[in-house]
């Protein structure tokens, strides 16, 4: 007798919610459906209410804290008529354009540098110290130097954001590359992979989850550098809008600009998480 057919059961996938629950809080039936999300919503509403109330009772001068309604009105007005010669959409597009231009530059350079660090001893010797020096410097500190070198045009702003993004991308790539299992590399080599094929078909895809994490961190770093970069003789952009509004004490535009920056950061984070799920569905399941 020989075994000719049988079926095997795929491994059961852990239920996501149970995988995420804190180990020391034992699962128990939920009491009347109070979720963390509901608590978060209530918290935000409470903050908004406190803000509205303090404005209503005029506890604080509107110059310091305009009411939520004034901010909302400003949002509508600026979206329609613009502020300092550009509509809100134009400011947003200008800022996003800079961040994405910087992101592409940072990805091209950062992934290459990260690969070099992860793969070769010489690459690590060259780039590791450079990154370690560059990483802790706040972008505002090297901004003046970049202006001396490259002027006050668009390239300087993009360059500053790129530098801010470079370290997270390169370091995550390097750690992803170093984390590739030796067995996986040996298997590919024994199947006939050349050195280049090894990088292209095994190392890069293996490091992809890590690269995407780096990209997410980089986007956060870049977005927060944006305001600093746009302080420099920009004529458009969210940072510029806030800056010029502050000079004229148009506080409602300042608050509105901050909220728009926060909203965009939130949306970007959300989009990248979606991309991660699409691109590296195996992450955390190996």
């Amino acid at each position, binding site marked *: *007798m*020989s*075994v000719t*057919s*049988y079926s*095997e*059961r*795929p*491994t059961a*996938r852990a239920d996501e919610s149970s995988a995420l629950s804190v180990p020391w809080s034992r699962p128990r039936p939920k009491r009347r459906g109070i979720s963390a999300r509901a608590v978060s919503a209530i918290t935000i509403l409470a903050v908004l209410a406190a803000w509205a109330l303090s404005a209503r009772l005029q506890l604080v001068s509107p110059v310091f804290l305009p009411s939520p309604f004034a901010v909302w009105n400003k949002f509508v007005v600026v979206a329609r008529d613009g502020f300092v010669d550009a509509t809100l959409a134009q400011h947003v597009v200008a800022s996003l354009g800079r961040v994405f231009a910087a992101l592409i530059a940072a990805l091209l350079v950062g992934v290459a540098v990260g690969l070099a660090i992860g793969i070769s001893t010489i690459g690590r010797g060259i780039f590791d110290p450079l990154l370690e020096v560059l990483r802790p410097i706040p972008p505002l500190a090297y901004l003046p130097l970049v202006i001396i070198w490259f002027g006050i045009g668009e390239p300087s702003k993009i360059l500053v954001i790129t530098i801010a993004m470079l370290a997270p991308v390169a370091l995550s790539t390097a750690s992803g590359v170093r984390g590739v*299992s030796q*067995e*996986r590399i*040996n*298997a*590919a*080599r*024994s*199947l*006939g*992979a*050349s050195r280049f*094929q090894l990088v292209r*078909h*095994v190392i890069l*895809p*293996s490091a*992809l989850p890590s690269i995407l994490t780096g990209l997410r961190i980089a986007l956060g770093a870049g977005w927060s550098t944006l305001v600093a970069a746009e302080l420099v003789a920009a004529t458009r952009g969210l940072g510029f809008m806030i800056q010029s509004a502050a000079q004229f004490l148009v506080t409602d535009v300042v608050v509105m600009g901050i909220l728009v920056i926060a909203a965009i950061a939130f949306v970007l984070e959300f989009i990248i998480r979606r991309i991660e799920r699409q691109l*590296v*569905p*195996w992450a955390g*399941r*190996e």
Partner: protein
Amino acid sequence: MPQLVLDNVSVHYEGQAAVERVSINVAKGDFVVLVGRSGCGKTSLLNVAAGLVEPVRGSASIAGRPITAPGPDRAVVFQNDALFPWLTARENVAFALRLRGVPPGERARRADELLKLVKLDGAGDKRIWELSGGMRQRVGLARALAAEPEFLLLDEPLGALDALTRERMQTTLLDLWTASQVGVLMVTHGIEEALVLATRIVVLAPGPGRVVRIFETGFSRRYATGEAIRSIKADPAFAAARGELTDAIFEGEAA
């Protein structure tokens, strides 16, 4: 007939001798199994054959050519499947073909044939994490066979599987070996597994790793000519060989 030859091979790790003067010949169609206690250098020897470890003395060659690097003429299957999770089962199997520039249609067709051979037909579109441990090892075997190797190097390929899956995989291995007529060099901890699969069993002892006994066995040939595994295992000769092999492995165990 092409041979995989390890001739008087010694392997040292950081000055420590792991293997001392071991010679092993694997001809095409052989199924050679290395057994022995931990630290006897089984895996080191396999890695020398794979071209992943360089011996300090002695030589390794395949069909007369010296082994200096890994190559698709000796595909390796590891204990942890080492599959690529970003590829489907089919794409994993077709990996070696892709490296050689085989066109997509052709390599998908080849991969599906191989998946059928390891009894995974229909699982080609599955992602790796959707497969059980046994299914993954099957994909790993199919992927190694896709390189059309003359020899298969198996490093405890069934080590991570549960007992029942293991037993089924043994018959799959024998079927593949019979069908493809490759030469196999395999490392295992399983005494019964060695007896079921091997045409020759090389018993190694640790400190440093060396050959203590070589058994020529015929149980796998009996399977190849149609006898059922259960009837082979029920044969008193199997039990006797099992006892003899166990004695050889633990012979000279420090008292």
